[in-house]
C-alpha cells in the first residue's frame, strides 16, 4: 500500500519540472505582450524624461536589449542554479525579496484556511441537518451572497462596518491579531460559501444512503452515525477541494492585500506588473505554480489515504 503511494508521489514530482518549464515559457511570453517596455516605464515612473540615450542605457543594464530567446535561456540558466535574477526596480535578488514577503501571505492564507474549516464544516452540517428550516434558509442566503460578492467590494464593506462604524478593527497594516481578522475573513468568505453548499449537499446525499437507516436500526447513536460514517464519507470529496483552495488563497490574496495594505506577495506582484519588473513576475508565477502542484499532490495523497477504494484500484491496475 505504501509503496504504491510512494511511486505515485514520485511520478507526480517527476512531472513538476515539465509543468514549471511550460509555465515559465508562457509567463515569459505573456508578460512581454504588455505594452510599453520596462526601461521606459522605469524612467517615466521616476519622472525622468525617457530620452533615446537613457532608454538604451537602461535596456542594456536590464538585459532587455538581447533577443528574446537569449533572454529566456539566460534566465533558465540562472534558475537552474537557483538564481532567479535581480529586480529591475530595487536591484535586489528577486528570490530574496519574494521570500521576505512570503510569510505574510502564508500567514493570511493559513488563517483564512482555518476560518474556512472552522466555519464551513459546522454551518454545512447544520444546514444539512435542518434542511429547509428557517436556519437552513438563512445560512444558504449568506452562502449565496458570499460567493457572489466581489472581493474588493466585500473588503471595503467590512472595513466600513467593523473599522469605521463599530471601531473594532484597524483599517490597515499588520502586527496584531486584530489586523489579521478582516483580511483573513475577506479572503475566506467566498470559499466558506462554496464549502457550506458543498458540505450541505454531500451530507444530505449521504444521509439518504441505506447504511444510515441500517445503522439507526442497529441502534447506533445519531451523533456516532454522523461523525463516524456520514461525515467521513462526505469529507472525502472535500479533500480535493481543500487542496485547490490553498493554492487559490495564495493567489487570491492579491486583491485582499491591496485593500488591507497587507505587506505580502500579492501587493508586490501588482507593483511589479505596473513597473514591468519581469524577473519578479516570472519568479512569482514559478513559485505559485510550485505551490499549486505540491498542494494538489498533497491532496491526492490525502484523498488516497482516506479513500481505500482508490488504492485498491491502483493495485488492480
Amino acid at each position: 500500500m505504501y509503496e504504491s503511494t510512494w511511486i505515485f508521489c514520485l511520478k507526480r514530482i517527476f512531472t513538476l519540472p515539465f509543468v514549471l518549464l511550460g509555465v515559465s515559457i508562457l509567463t515569459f511570453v505573456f508578460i512581454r505582450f504588455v505594452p510599453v517596455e520596462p526601461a521606459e516605464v522605469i524612467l517615466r515612473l521616476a519622472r525622468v524624461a525617457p530620452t533615446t540615450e537613457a532608454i538604451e542605457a537602461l535596456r542594456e543594464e536590464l538585459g532587455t536589449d538581447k533577443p528574446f530567446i537569449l533572454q529566456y535561456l539566460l534566465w533558465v540558466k540562472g534558475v537552474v542554479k537557483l538564481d532567479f535574477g535581480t529586480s529591475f526596480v530595487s536591484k535586489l535578488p528577486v528570490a530574496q525579496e519574494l521570500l521576505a514577503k512570503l510569510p505574510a501571505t502564508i500567514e493570511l492564507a493559513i488563517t483564512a484556511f482555518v476560518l474556512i474549516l472552522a466555519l464551513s464544516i459546522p454551518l454545512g452540517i447544520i444546514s444539512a441537518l435542518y434542511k429547509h428550516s428557517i436556519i437552513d434558509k438563512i445560512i444558504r442566503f449568506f452562502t449565496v451572497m458570499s460567493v457572489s460578492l466581489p472581493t474588493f467590494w466585500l473588503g471595503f464593506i467590512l472595513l466600513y462596518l467593523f473599522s469605521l462604524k463599530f471601531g473594532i478593527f484597524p483599517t490597515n497594516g499588520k502586527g496584531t491579531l486584530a489586523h489579521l481578522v478582516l483580511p483573513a475573513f475577506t479572503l475566506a468568505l467566498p470559499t466558506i460559501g462554496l464549502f457550506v453548499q458543498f458540505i450541505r449537499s454531500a451530507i444530505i446525499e449521504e444521509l439518504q444512503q441505506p447504511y444510515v437507516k441500517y445503522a439507526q436500526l442497529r441502534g447506533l447513536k445519531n451523533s456516532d452515525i454522523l461523525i463516524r460514517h456520514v461525515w467521513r464519507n462526505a469529507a472525502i470529496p472535500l479533500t480535493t477541494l481543500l487542496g485547490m483552495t490553498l493554492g487559490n488563497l495564495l493567489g487570491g490574496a492579491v486583491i485582499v492585500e491591496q485593500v488591507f495594505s497587507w505587506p505580502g506577495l500579492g501587493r508586490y506582484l501588482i507593483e511589479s506588473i505596473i513597473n514591468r519588473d519581469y524577473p519578479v513576475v516570472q519568479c512569482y508565477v514559478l513559485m505559485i505554480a510550485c505551490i499549486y502542484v505540491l498542494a494538489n499532490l498533497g491532496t491526492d495523497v490525502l484523498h488516497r489515504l482516506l479513500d481505500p477504494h482508490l488504492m485498491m484500484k491502483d493495485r488492480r491496475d
Partner: protein
Amino acid sequence: MRLTKYLLPFLLVLTFSILAGCTSSEQEKGKIASKAKTEEKMITVGWPLDVGPLNPHTYLPNQMTAQAMVYESLVEYNDDGTITPKLAESWDISEDKTAYTFHLRTDVKYSDGTAFNADNVIRNFDAVLANRDMHSWMGMVNHIVEVVKVDDSTIRLQLDEPYYPVLNELAFVRPFRFLGNNGFPEGDLTQDSIKAAIGTGPWVLTDYKKDEYALFSRNENYWGEKPLVDKIKVKIIPDSDSISLAFENEELDLIYGRGIISLDNYTYLKDSGKYQTATSEPLSTKALLFNTRSGPLAELNVRQAIQYAINKEQMVDSITHGTEKVANTLFWDAIPYTNIDLAPILYNPEKAQKLLDEAGWTLQKGEKIRSKNGQTLTLDLIYIATDAIQKPMAELMQGELAKIGVQLNIEGADVMVGLQKLMDDQVDINFWRTNGPPTDPHSFANESATPNASGVYEAKLGLPNAKEIDTKIHQLLVGTDEEERVQLYTDILSMFHDQALFYPISYETNNVIYQPYMKDFAPRASEYDIPYAQMNKEN
C-alpha cells in the same frame, strides 16, 4: 438529531471567542494610539508606495517626498518661481555664464554630526556625475565639465557652454542632493546603493519596515528652523480608498498630495464638515496633446474647433469638484517666463461649427458625423484607464464633440500606452501633463525639441513652423541674454498657443485634508516638498 444541540452553541462560542480575541487588542488601534496624550508629538500620513532606500542620487523606487525630508539642495525653488539660498548661502555667476561659484553655509552638520563642507559636496557631485547617462535627462548634466573646490566652504561648477536653468535643476529633489560621508558605500558607487541615509535635512529615518511604514524623527542637528513635531510616520497604504478609510478612522492625521485619494473621496470627506482642507497653488497642467502628423488634426481649424466645442469650465468644475482651476494657457502664471498675454479660446460651439464648415468638414443630410471627401471626422483619444479624472473627462468630451458632428472614440489603457501610441502616430489625442516646478518651463522646451521624450516633439511634426520652434528652443537654452530669453519664451509659447497643439484643461494642485486637531499650515505647490516641518497638532 441530538448532536445538533451541541453544534449551535459551539459555533456561537467559537465566533464570540474570535471576536473577543480581537477586541482585546483595541489598544493597538490607531484611533486610540493617535489620540493618546503622550509628550511626543507624531504626525501620521498615508502614502501609496514604500519610501524606498532613501538614496539621494537615484530614482525609482525612491519616493521623492521622502528624499526631500532627509536631503537638501544647494538652492531652493519657491512657489512664486524665485530661487533662494539653501545649503549655499550665496553664489556668483561668471560673466560668460559658464562658471557658478557657490558659497556654502558653514553652520550645517549632517544628522550624524559630521560636517558639511566643500570636500563632501564635491564627493557627492562626483558620485552623481560618474553615472551621467542615468541623469542625462537633466540638461545641466550634459554641460558640466567639472566641479572643483575653491576653499573649504566654496565650490565652483564649470560648464562647457552657458545653460541658464542650472539653479532650477540644482533645486530639484534628485540627483544633486547631499549624502554625508558615512553614508557612502565602498568605491562611492551610490548608483547601486548607499550605506546609510545621512542627510542635512530636518528629518532622520529612525525606524522602517518595508511596505509597512517609515518613521522619521526630528534631526536634532538641523541647521534651520526645527520642526514643530517630533516624529512623522509614513504609513504605506497602496489603495487610495483604503487611505481615505484610514483617515476617516483617525488612523491618519492627514492626506497630502495630488491624486493620493480620488476626488470623489476628497469631496466626500470635505463635505462631511468634520475636517479641514487646503489646496496649494497650481503645480502642473492637465492638457490634451494633439497629434498633428496625420488625420483630421493636421488641420488647424479642427484643432481649434475641438477647443471651442467643449464647455471646459463646466467639465473641470463638475469632475474635479472645484479642486482644480480651469486652465486657458499651458502654464500657470507663477511658472517663470510663462506669464504672457495669450487670448484664451473660450467655449463657443457656434464658432466650432463655423471653423469646421470653413475647413470643408460638413454635415451631409441625415448624417450625424461630419465628413470631407468621403472621410468621416472621427478621432481617437486614449486615457489612462485607472485615472479617476481622465475617464469622465473623456466621456464628457465625447458628448460635447458629438454635438458638433465629431466622433470621438475613447479607449482606456494602461499608463503610458497612449503616449507610446501617439509617438508612433497611431492615435490622435492623448492626455498630457506638464512636469511642474522647478524644471518647467525649460524642461518642457527641452522635451518639445527632442525626439522620443514626452511625445510633444512627435505630435508637433505636422505644424508648419515645427522647425522654427525647434530652432528657437535651442537658442533659448544656450542664450545668455535674459531679455532675449523672455522674448524667445513668449514666441515659442505663442506659437504653440496659436497652433492649438495643446488643449489646456486644468491646473493641478496638491489637495490636503487634515484632522480638526491639526494646526493650520500652508501646502506647497511642489510635487515632492511636503511642509512637515511647519505642521503641528494640539495636545
